[in-house]
Structure formats: C-alpha cells, structure tokens
C-alpha cells in the first residue's frame, strides 16, 4: 500500500463518549454518526485486526471515517469516507 495514497489512514485525536462513539474529531464536534461497523480479522497472523469504524459528519460539514486501533495502543485514525 502506498502511504501517500489518499485512503491511507492518518492518526487523529478523537474524544469518545462512554459508549465509545466519537464526540469530537481533531477538536471539531461530531454532528452525526452515519454508519458504524466492525472489522475483526487476520486473527491467524502476528498482526490481528480489531477495529471499530465510524463514518461521521463533523460540525464543519466534512464527512470522515475514523477508527480506533487497539493494537496501536488505542490510537484513533482518520480516513476519507
């Protein structure tokens, strides 16, 4: 994968509520959560995936996908929707 590619996930600061749903992304409020999905895969490899994804609409009008990566110490990442 090309790290410079437009879909490559980048770390982002996310504040999440008690249920784990993002409240702000990079300090900007989340207006709506459009979708929420899970990827739990590659369990047979040294790098198993377990991600909870959210497609959110931010207060500034942007549509983003963010996910939390437990394998990276719970770091959040953002991707283009």
């Amino acid at each position, binding site marked *: 994968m090309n790290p410079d590619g437009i879909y490559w996930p980048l770390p982002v600061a996310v504040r999440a509520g008690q249920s784990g749903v993002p409240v702000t992304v990079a300090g900007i409020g989340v207006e709506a959560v*459009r*979708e*929420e*999905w*899970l*990827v*739990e*895969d590659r*369990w*047979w*490899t*040294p790098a198993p995936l377990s991600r909870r*994804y959210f*497609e959110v609409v931010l207060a500034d009008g942007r549509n983003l996908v963010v996910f939390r990566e437990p394998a990276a110490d719970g770091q959040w990442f953002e991707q283009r929707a």
Partner: protein
Amino acid sequence: MTAPYVELHSHSAYSFGDGASLPEELALRAAELGYSSLALTDHDGLWGSMEHAQACKSAGIQSITGAEMTVIDRTRGQAVDEPFHLTLLVENAIGYRNLCRLVTEAHRDTRPKPDAEPLAPLLHLDSLEERSEGLICLSGCARDGALAGRWERGEIERATALGRRLVGIFGRERFRVELQRPFWRHDRARNRWLGGFAERLGVPSVATGNVHMHERSRALLADALVAVRLHGTLESTEPGRRGNRSSAMASPATMATRFAEHPDAVGESARLAERLQFDLTRDLGYDYPGSEDPSADPALAAICRARLGHRYAGMPERGEAARRLEEELQMIAKLGLSGFFLLHYDILELARKVAAEVRGRDSARMLLPPGRGRGSSVSSVVCYLTGLSHIDPVKGELFLGRFLNEQITDAPDIDLDFPRDIRERLIPRIHERYGSERSALVSAFACYRSRSAVRDFGKVLGLPAGEIERAAGILDIYDRPESVERDLAEAIGAQRARSGRWRALSALAREAWGLPRHASQHPGGMILSTQPLIDICPVQPAAMKGRRIAQWDKDSCADGGFLKIDLLGLGMLSAVERAIEEIARVRGESIDLSRIPLDDPEVYSAIQRAETTGVFQIESRAQMQMLTRTLPESIEDLTVQVALVRPGPIQGGAVHPYLRHKEALRADPGYQVPYEHPSLEPILADTLGTIVFQEQVIQVAMALAGFSPGKAEGLRRAMSRKRSEAAILAYRGDFIEGAMARGATQAVAEKVFEQVRGFSGFGFPKAHAAAFGLLAYQSTWLRVHYMPELLCSLLNEQPMGFYPPDSLVHEAQRKEIEILRPDVNASAVDCIVEPSLAVRIGLGYVNGLKEGDAQAVVAERGRGGAYRDLADLAGRSGASRAALERLAWAGACDEIVAEGEAGTAAARRPALWRLGVAAAAQRTPQGEQIALPFAAPSSPSLRELGDWELVVADYESTGMTIDTHPMSLIRPQLTGEPETSETLWKLPTDTRVEAAGMVVARQRPATANGIVFMLLEDEWATINLIIPPPVYDRHRMAVRTAPFVHVIGRLERRGANMNIVVDAMRRLERPDLPLAKVRPIEPPAERETGRDGAGERDEIADLGVSLPAAHSFGRRR
C-alpha cells in the same frame, strides 16, 4: 423485562461451511440467553432440523423449523438475475410439507454426473408460486438476500420488482422484509431503505441476527469453514467471510439495542414466533407402508403358519415354535406391526429375484439365501419363517423382548446383510418398487476429527502441504482434540507448533472436533413411507446413480419414528459366496453351507489354536488371544466369542470375569459361577455371570430393578445413542431404587448399574452374535477344508477384514499354499485358483492398471491364444503403453521376455525396456488403434534389479511381495541379537528380549486406556506387541508411521499367548540405500522471531524417503 425479540435466522454446522455450532449448542445457548423460541434456517436443507427440534425440546424452548433457500428467477429457462437467498419458516404442517418438497426440488439436479462433485442446490422462483402455503418468507440476509443483495449492488429497480413479486406469492400476511445488522459499512443505510421499502409494500419488516455460532469464540472457526467451503485460504476468501464476530448469538436485549432504529422490526420477530407453532417432535405425521392395511394381520399369519409346517416338520421344537408364533402374531397385531413385517417379507422376496439375476440360475451360489438377518430380529420366529433370519430362534433359545415387546414405541430394528453385489442391485430396485418419492437411503454425516481438521484448516492457513501431511499422518482416529497440539509438536517441532498459524491450527482443530463436515450416505439404512417421503423429509440424489438420500441421519430418522431397514453389504458374505463358486469351478464340488456339520472337530481345533487369519470376526489380534483361552467348542461358544470383544462388554467389565469363570469351569466342571444377585442367574447363565449381549441389559433391568419391558428397552436405546450420557443417568435412580426394593443391597445395585452403564459402548444382541458366530464358523470351515479358494476370494473382496492382502498371502505361504504372481498368460482379471490349487494373483491387482486394460489383455488371450512375446502382447492386447509398463513392473510379463531371462529376476528391466520401444495401442477419438506386431528389439545389457528393488517394485505394483520377505533383507543388518517369531517361543516369560519385524497392524482402541497394540510379521510368523502409554508417548512417530521396527521389551507368556510389552522402539531403515539426511526437527529459535511461520518451506528432510514405499495396510489400491 426481556426484550421482545426471537431469533428467526440462525445457521448450524449443518449449513456445511457456513455455521460453526451444533444445533444442541445453539438451543442451549438460546435458553441461557432467555429466548423463548429459536429458528434453525440452514442453507438449502433440513439436515439438522430434527436434531434442532429435539434439542430445543430438551432445553425447554420452542423450535421453529426453516431453511434459507438459494433461489433463482428464470423466465423460459433463462436466468434473468443472480441467485438470491430467502428465509422460509414453517407455520404449519402444510408449510412443512411444502418446505420438504422445495428443498427436494432444489437438490434435484445437483448430480448431473454420478460420482462427481455435486452442484450447488438451486430453487426456481416459480416453484414458490406453487408451494408457498404454510410458509412465512423473510426477504433474506444482508449480503445475498432477495432485496438487500440488490440494494447493495445498486439494483433498486430489480429489488423493487422482486419484492412486489414475493408479496404476490406469499401475500402481505406471510411476507416480511428482513433487516440485519452484521456490522458492515452500509448497515444503517440499507436498513433504512429496506424499512422504507417494506412500508411502501405494505408489509412489516422483521429483525434477524443471521446467527452462525452459539458464542463468539467460534467465530474463528466460522471463518476457517468458509475458507474451506470456498476452496481458498483465509486471505483469499476475505470477501466471502463475515469480517467480524457479530454473528454469534446475542441476547434479546442486545439485539433490541442493535435495532434501536427499528423497534417494530424487533417486535415483529416475537409476533411471528407466536404464529410459528409447528413442532417437528410432535407434528411430523409419518406412517410406514402397510400400517393402514386392514388385511395385513391375516396375511402375515397365513404366510407364517404355512411355513411353520415345512420348517419344523418332524422336529421336537415344533410345538414350542407354534406356541411362540401365535404369541408373536398376537403381539404384532396388537402393536399394529403386521404391515411392517409384510414389508420386510416383500423386500426379501425382491432380494431373492435380484439374487437370482446377479448369481445366475446355474451358479453354485444359488443354494445360498439372498441375505441374512442380523440384529435382534433374528430372535423372532416370525422373522425366521418369513426368511428374514436364518437362525432358528426356538432352537437357539433367543430372547424376543429386545426386538418386540408390548411397550415399544418405535418400529423395531431389522438389519439385513447382503453380499455386496446383490446389495448394489437391490437398492435401486427398492427405489423402483416403492417409488423414488417413497424410499430413500439415510444420511450419515462425516464429522471433523483431528486428522480431517488438520488437513482442511492447515490448507486454509496456507501451511506447507508436506508438513500438513506429515502432521496428519501421525494423528489417528482415536485422537482426542486436546492432543492435536502435542501431535503437531511431534511432527514439526514444539517451537514451531507453538508459533502463529500452527497454534491457530491446533485451536481450530479443537473447536471443530465433532462438527459435521459434509453429508454422505449411510452404509445401508433405508427408509420407506406410505405417503411420499418428500412430504416429511427432503430427499436428494446420492453420488451413486439411482440412489437417493434423505437429509436425516439414523438418529433423526429414529426420532421421527421412521421405518428404517438396514441393507448392509457384508464383505465376508461376498467372500464366502465367491469361495463356493471357486470350489465348484476348480474341484467340481457343490457346497451348501447351510448343511455343513456344525460340530467339525478340525474346525474347532483350528479355532482353539487361533489359526483364524482371514476368517470372519475371530481373526483380529484381540480375538485370537482370547480364542486360546476360551477354547470354543460349539456354535454357542462362538456366539459368545464374537460378542465378547466389543466395546460394550469390554467397558462393562465382562471380559475378564468371563475368561476366569470359563477357565475355572474347565478345570473343575463342578465350579459354581458367582452371580451378583440370584435373580440374575437365569439371565446370565449362558455368559457365565457377565453381561455380554444387549438384551441381557433389558433382562437384568427387568429382573433386578423391576423395569417394565418398555422402560428397559428405553434404557437400552439410551445406551445406543451418541447423545446419551444424560439419558442413561436419568434411569439410574429408578434402577437402584427398584433393585433395592427387590432385596439387592445398594452396593450390588450400584455395581450392576455400573456394569449396565459400562455397556453403553457398542454391543451385539445375542441373535446378531448368533448370525455372526455362524458366519465365523462357516468361514473357518472353508479355511480348514478349502483354504486356497477362501484366500482367493478374500483377495478379490479387498478391502475387508483385519489383515492386508500382503499378510494374508504370507500366512498362506507359511501354510504351504503356493501363490503365483500376476502373469499376462495365466492370470484372469480377478485372482483365481489354478488346477494345482495354487492361487494366481489377478491382473486387477496391478496398481494403476485400468480395469478395461486388464479385461482387454485377458479377452484377447482367450480369443487369440497365449502371448508369444512382448511385441505380441503390445500388438494384440489393445492395452495402453502405460498399462503395459505397469504389467511389466509387476512382473506380469516376466515369462514372455527373451529366452534365458524368462521367469527370472533378470526379466523385469528388459521387459520394461522392450515395452518402451514396442508399438502399443493408441487411443484415438475414433477408438483404439491396434499396433502392428513388430518384433521388439533386444534390450541393451541392463543391470538386474536388486533384492530390495524387486521388493519395492512388488509393493508398488501389487501391494504385496510373494518371493522375498522384506525382513529377510533387513535381518543381516540388524544390530544386537533380536529374536524371531520362532525363537521367542523357546524363551520363558519375563525374559528381556529384542525383536524386529514388519508392521502389519496398529490399534489404539478407545477401550484400552491409551495402550497401543501392534502386530509385527517376520519371515516365520507374527509377533504381538503391547505398547504402554508412556512408551507410546516416547516413540509416537515410530509407533504410528514406521513400516519396520526394532523393539526391546519384556516377554509376556500366558498359556498359548505371547506378547512383548515394549520398553523401547526404533524405526528400521532400509539397509541398501544411503539414509536420508535427517536434520533436527526443532528449527532454530531465531527463525520464529517475529514471523507467523506461514509459507516457510522447512528444510527438514523427509524421513520417509529411504523407506520401502507402498507397504499395504489393507487397501487394494
């Protein structure tokens, strides 16, 4: 308060490759989570439906029957769209009948080519128009559902049209739009659209979970199963897998939360469940053919009374037989089973016709009955008179209660054994006679065991094929799932086995153990019905042409109360029939086995010396060791003998007391056999105080604990089921209470119950044992008086029995029977006995030789005379070049090589060389192009094959060696002073000994507490080894895989038995080749660091490369 949610969409492992839990596991989990009902909707089948219904009943919840069908819309035969899924749920009996028919129809065209992989089942949408009544249709899953699948692909118009069509078929009352939440990216958008579309259609939407496993931990297995089904690796099948673990069963409250945006859809699941009250355990409505026939009672009585006079003419038992007949007829009429017996009678009459066709009118086999009854039916005088059994139950004092009693709730079992060739023809004839819609074979489900799991999951994990095979090779069928990790460690090294993918493989094999892998055909169980069977259980075509299989296994069929007839192909019956034909052909003697003397002293003498290799039932290592102690003297003794070495009597602790009492009685005829309680003496007298036969369990329960016949039979049935431990324990309290009420102490009551419980492994009814004991006697009689013919027929019926052909041949040679190798100028396709009474191996024994080629060689020899030389063979026989080379490699051309070499070890290489240049027949699209008979040129000077090369060539080409025993080649290289099978007999017990031999058999019986038994063969005879568990643990690889071994141990002699209790074992290598370079199995630690181990071709040398190949272990090809 529990959320109003019911799971209406779940898959069990009977969705083969798309479900990772048993129906029982799903039902138990559903009950734990607080569900009131649970639907099972496996893909395109009802294989697990009865199991589901029974499990739900036990768990105290309502079962809902259904299936997720794959449907295609066709217009004038052309598919107009992609296939899609619909979830069909049964509302009432009409709906169930329709679902069975729909599933049957979906499978109808899945076997266009017999014996090829089946096609996927597919149902035409038009069929639903005709059979929608009584069914509720949900629009299907999120990925492939009729509506959701089209929405996913952006085909809104098609989805809309299909939705309207489905409403048209099922009406607004019975069609629902299905919403699912698999936690995929577009769940919310999809469900919003589906919810809106449902409103536009005017139907409710309903939430479902599409459950694929009962708990999250099985999700990994579910992934692996999908990859197996899609024939890919876990990586390559990512789009076809579920992607997360949310398809595990969740609680109603969790499901309500998942569908928080669609509360009505959650409530609709519970409202629908209220309507779905059809219960398979109650509403099946099955009757067997003849059950409603009012004339059945007098018809059966007339047949039996007419035959009674003939069968018992002039016999002292006639009066007793007449009394028993009337008693049985009365009971049969009372139970409404006359039609059942007439049906069996009808089948046997059909079998007679088939037998006449198969055997030919003038065959020596015509004297034999077409088949034989086995099982408890042999105890019935009605069965004896209608020809279902060939044992006189009055003379044999057989107990009827196990077979028939006034309280039986299911139809009794009747098993019929047929020679294989008759059975093959009989099954399609039964389909013809009763209609293919009213008869079917029973399913059997191949379940995951350690070996199949390692093979399947090793592949999907992308592990190296060679290592997977090596690991699978050391697993045996008795391995428990817990031992997989240890076995893998042994095969590939402990460190590697703990690494990434290998560790995953162990975990998957553990989880998969016991889950059904695929459906196949039961060996002979057949069910028949008055109404079309396809109204009560789906039926699908079998791999073999003309056969059809019901989707239920024998347990589900029994739960459904089906009439099941077991038509079993018994190799020994076929072998005995072949022997009789061969005796007639070779010696001109016509033998009627039903009239041979049953007290032949030569036969019993052979049995008592355990010279029983190749005979029925009493040939195994365990049986042989028992024979020299029990010393059978009569058919009655043999009846006990065949029943004794079975898991039931062994686990019930019957074997040693029986042997002790038998030996005590022989030493002192006045010896009093002890009984646990006086009431047991009349029941257990024949078996010297032990429980050996199944019906003794019933009799003991009746006599000691006061059980009624029906309740005692219930206990016996509980013992014979695979899901039975809880059921057996349920009887325990009543048993002990009953026994104590009849004067037994608590200790005795508990002890006897434990004996009964121990019997829950497999055991024979006495009648069955009597039938088998008789066949054991008859085959021993043939061995004693006609050994060449018996050997010849055993070789032709392989695979069967305990010994591979190689061992049978060596044993016969030790008995001075001459064995002749295959020869193009003397062999038939099958093995034959020559006029000199030598046994000639058939060309059919040559590995890889097509049957057509073997037939062509024999036919042309019959037409044009013996082949003069290799060119003549190549030119005339029509066999392909590959076939000729295989014949030459097997030594079948040794006699027609140039003079001087013919018939010698020097012949094989020149024969191969000359056939390589001789013109052979060519196959062309127009047929066979026969070659011109040009003379083959002389071969250059070729080195003669060495002794080992000849042995290897023999094993590779025929699976046996006739001239040289391989141990004679290994022996000069042996270090130390190993004893032979002969010299061991000269040593006293407890001597420390060394021995060596070729491994003939390995056994690790589940009943032997981890002990492994091995049988070695050397140039003179066989040697028994006992390998205790600690020794097995140290030498597992050698025990399981070595073809030749050297052992050290303690000689144990008891009477005529001799064993070596092994302390140490090592594999013997072939002496004349350099050994393979064996590197350490443990890979260096650094290789594992940071890697998952996949794809690494390890450099461990193949331990097998220096060993003789193709040692036969019972398979002919």
